[in-house]
């Protein structure tokens, strides 16, 4: 990571600085009314989930034997983990394709991805009917290795609990280092180098495993066969699900970075954002190319433009992905914050639509039964999302998640707006003036 001086935007509209390292949010109240609202929603959702554990699924959901999967699976897991694929997309770009600039926003992607996966897994835990039999996951001789469901039920918890947790471990250790006592600091200095030694090996798993389970989410739907409309049902669905996850991860990271920087009055970094936008546009084009080639190969192109309900849905979804793909080719769009934000949201919505439609809207079984999520189902789904949002807000306030200027990162152990701890610190150092400046905003 290079330390460069903040530079002024050439167009003079916005001051654009370089993001240099993760910096915690240290000003403004943490508990805003909005956060309390989200906490309440998360509490209601989790309360219902706890009730659900002592009750059959019937009273809590509108699922039936024809639509056996409700929104907990189809939205909270299959759709939202695409948005949580930021660590996968950015990680591969940064570490495998050596896009050095992206290292600085990895933490934002990692924390959001972890929360999407964790809340998805909570949703899954309350969705399955016989969770007490899940201990079979530890017994490889019971595994049905050809089942995509097995791949997901093992890889997703493994990825979240081991690989993502390891990747966000430095954030937590760093905080303990800066707020803890001498003993913990000595301990952390000792294990720090070991983490660095293990890191390049662990991240191999952290990229291979989501490649497997994000494609398996598409692979799940292959077995549904003719129940899914042929515009979506295709042998390349696993690949498309994976590519959709990659661009959703990129798009959501752009979106998240921009809105939190707006919220906490941080400067944006044009260099990093345009790099992400470039990648986003490229992956969107790859997705559309595979999608069209697949439709031509399966001779479904006529059905795709038949302008009936499914065809319009397909065109709508593709347009949502095509628009950012084209728009972000233009430098002016990439460098205009408002346009970049809009385009990344469009890409996210397009990818989410692609991942949601075949599980629900284009899922047309033989027996004509309708499914619309019941109120408790919706509240629980919203509660899981609220839980993730609350955790993210707390994370950016107490950990060095969001990117900022290196100058605003206080290395003299005055961390995280905890003045009590700061005064105890015996280690002296220069206090950068930039710290004072940022607090003044």
């Amino acid at each position, binding site marked *: 990571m290079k330390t460069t001086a903040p530079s002024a935007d050439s167009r003079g509209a916005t001051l654009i600085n370089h993001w240099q390292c993760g910096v915690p949010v240290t000003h403004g109240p943490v508990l805003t009314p909005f956060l309390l609202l989200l906490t309440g929603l998360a509490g209601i959702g989790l309360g219902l989930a706890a009730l659900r554990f002592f009750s059959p699924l019937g009273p809590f959901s509108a699922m039936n034997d024809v639509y056996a999967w409700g929104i907990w699976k189809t939205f909270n897991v299959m759709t939202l983990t695409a948005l949580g694929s930021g660590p996968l997309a950015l990680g591969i770009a940064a570490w495998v394709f050596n896009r050095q600039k992206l290292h600085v926003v990895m933490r934002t992607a990692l924390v959001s991805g972890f929360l999407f996966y964790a809340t998805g897994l909570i949703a899954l835990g309350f969705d399955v009917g016989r969770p007490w*039999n899940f201990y079979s996951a530890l017994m490889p001789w019971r595994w*049905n290795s050809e089942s995509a*469901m097995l791949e997901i039920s093992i890889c997703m918890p493994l990825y979240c609990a081991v690989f993502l947790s390891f990747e966000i471990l430095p954030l937590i250790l760093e905080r303990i280092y800066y707020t803890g006592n001498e003993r913990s600091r000595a301990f952390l200095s000792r294990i720090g180098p070991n983490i660095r030694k293990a890191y390049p090996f662990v991240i191999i798993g952290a990229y291979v495993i989501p490649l497997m389970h994000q494609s398996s989410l598409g692979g799940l739907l292959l077995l549904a066969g003719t129940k899914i409309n042929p515009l979506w049902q295709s042998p390349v669905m696993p690949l498309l699900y994976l590519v959709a996850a990659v661009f959703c991860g990129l798009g959501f990271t752009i979106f998240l970075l921009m809105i939190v920087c707006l919220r906490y009055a941080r400067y944006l970094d044009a260099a990093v954002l345009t790099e992400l936008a470039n990648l986003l546009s490229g992956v969107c084009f790859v997705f559309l190319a595979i999608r069209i080639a697949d439709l031509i190969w399966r001779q479904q192109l006529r059905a795709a433009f038949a302008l009936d309900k499914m065809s319009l849905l397909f065109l709508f979804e593709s347009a949502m992905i095509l628009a950012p793909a084209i728009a972000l080719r233009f430098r002016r769009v990439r460098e205009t914050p408002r346009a970049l934000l809009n385009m990344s949201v469009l890409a996210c919505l397009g990818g989410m639509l692609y991942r949601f439609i075949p599980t629900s809207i284009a899922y047309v079984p033989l027996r004509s039964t309708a499914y619309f999520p019941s109120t408790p189902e919706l509240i629980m789904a919203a509660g899981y999302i609220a839980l993730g949002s609350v955790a993210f807000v707390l994370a950016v306030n107490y950990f060095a998640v969001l990117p900022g200027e290196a100058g605003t990162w206080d290395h003299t152990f005055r961390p995280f707006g905890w003045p009590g701890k700061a005064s105890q610190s015996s280690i002296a150092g220069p206090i950068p003036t930039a710290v004072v400046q940022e607090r003044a905003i």
Partner: protein
Amino acid sequence: MNVILSRRQAFKAMIGLGGTVTSALLPAAAHAAADSRGNSEEHPAHPIAPPDAVAMLFDSTVCTGCKACMPACNEANGLPTDTLLSGGIWDMPTGLNAKTKNIIELYQDPQSDNFAFVKKQCMHCLDPACVTGCPFGSLVKRDLGAVTWNSSLCIGCRYCEVACPFEVPQFQWENWNPKIVKCEFCYDQRLKEDMQPACTSVCPTGAVIFGKRTDLLAQAKERIAATPEKYFENRVYGEYEAGGTQVLYLSSVSFQKLGLPKLGTTSIGHYATKVTSVLYKWLAGPALVAGVFGFFIRRNWERHETERREHEKKTGFPDQL
């Protein structure tokens, strides 16, 4: 000669190269081995029924709709009666559900007086999609071809319901300890003891009969040959549908009108696993990707570390990971 690699690096490169080559070659070798043994593929596109496979043959033109098979099924499986529609008086299910493994349904033509009965239960596919999808092997295809469910392995993910093209497995939504309810060919109750399933044993007209699949298929074709004008399309539903099933249907009206889905002849398990079974053979695909990623990550990591050490020396503060 100028030696660029250290001994250790050379070993590493050899191991890496070896691993990559092996993981590329192993699946090919495995594939070749499978081919040489003939039809030993896990999910062939058109599975061949084993010689001991049993079957049911349901002839819709013979069924009178007496529903004798339904209480017989309930009794053999210990199922409660579904009295929701009858006001608590008698068993009156509207379709396969958590209390019903077997049902007689009526098709009535909206224009004419034509009608036909159809018996619905598990089709016991030769390559069942539910068994392919079941993560911990709770649903298995047993000997004689019966597809059965094991409560101690099921996690209740309901993937079988999504996978089954006939929409047979039913989940107990109103039970805290939910079970998957589906016809199991009376495997534990009767089939194991050399008895035929309850439904076929009580059928008074012989509309549904039990026997070896090959025998029943031959018999069905004889019936079609004897009176070809009586049967729709002159074919047996279940002979090839979804790779073939162990429940066979004869009908005078279109099978789709009876509520049987229009399916291709390829096994669904084959469609779903033909690519992944090659990619994931001995985890060769993931290992290959891990090898390639590992090579680049290692290279970029070294660069990153060099830069980090320079940066830390310059500023005197630890760099973030």
